[in-house]
């Protein structure tokens, strides 16, 4: 499982966009690095991150090797009512990770 952290505000106003912050533990190997003995380190990246709210996808990103190691993302989501926000990520080997948070809507 690919580890990561997620943060949403403690409580949000209905219909007002709120900030979602994600940080994922992943080397994002770009395939250009070599071991000390000259062996190529193969490409290995998180290539997709998707955010759902109440089960519906509200945001996603297709990542390439140009995204830094330990991908950091900040984006916005708008919610009408309280619900579960879930962020899932997957890498090019099919390994997955996710984090979820309950959003309180005032």
């Amino acid at each position, binding site marked *: 499982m690919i580890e990561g952290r997620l943060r949403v505000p403690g409580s949000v106003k209905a219909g007002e966009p709120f900030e979602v*912050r994600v940080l994922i533990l992943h080397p994002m190997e770009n395939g250009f690095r070599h071991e000390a003995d000259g062996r190529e380190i193969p490409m290995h990246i998180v290539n997709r991150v998707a955010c759902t709210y109440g089960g519906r996808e509200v945001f996603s990103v297709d990542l390439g090797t140009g995204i830094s190691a330990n991908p950091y993302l900040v984006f916005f989501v708008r919610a009408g009512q309280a619900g579960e926000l879930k962020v899932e990520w997957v890498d090019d080997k099919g390994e997955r990770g996710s984090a979820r948070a309950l959003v309180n809507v005032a």
Partner: protein
Amino acid sequence: MWLSALFAAVTVASGIEYQSDAVKAMQADSFGNPGLLWVDRGAELWKQKCTGCHGDVASMKGAAARYPRHSPQLGRVVDLEQRIQACMPGLAWESRDLLGLTALVARQSNGIPISVDVSGPAASTHERGRSLYFERQGQLNLACTNCHDANVGKTLLSEPISQGQPADWPAYRLEWQSLGSLQRRLRACYFGVRAEMPAFGSDDLVALELYLAARAQGLAASVPGVRR
């Protein structure tokens, strides 16, 4: 000896002061500091393996500020990584678990001034560290002091030279794209002057760490640090 007393008179400043605004912001980011991913792992491990004896990690408050220190049990001066390794065998240098625990424990001393004991059994190690700090070495024939005292603030390869302070370690180095220990950074310094790198956990690296901590007396740490 007077030479080192002279340099000690300069105000100590953390390496973060010599980083760009972007790196400063990354270190200050209480969510997005990449080193926190290792701290998270450390916190998980602490819950599983450490609470039995140590209780809540908050009990470690102030501990890291006194490291490296002479351990009566181990009969030598050890740094924080080695103290953790002694407690929990099988943690390799630069492994995610050791880095995680070290960063977690070190973090409990954030804001607390570094204050190491270099008297008694630690004295000879401190002396060894001091002599290493002032000894020219490597193909470039440079001693730590040549850059980190005589040329602080000047640029080398477009980068400002810091005082070489040990606070804020373990730190996330952008060049490594990972959190790393102070020993890893010191080894890179040896490489920087084209000298043989001492092995992880070697006496020389611990001696240097102890000297650096004594030189940093009063400087408060902010772990995990972020560096270019």
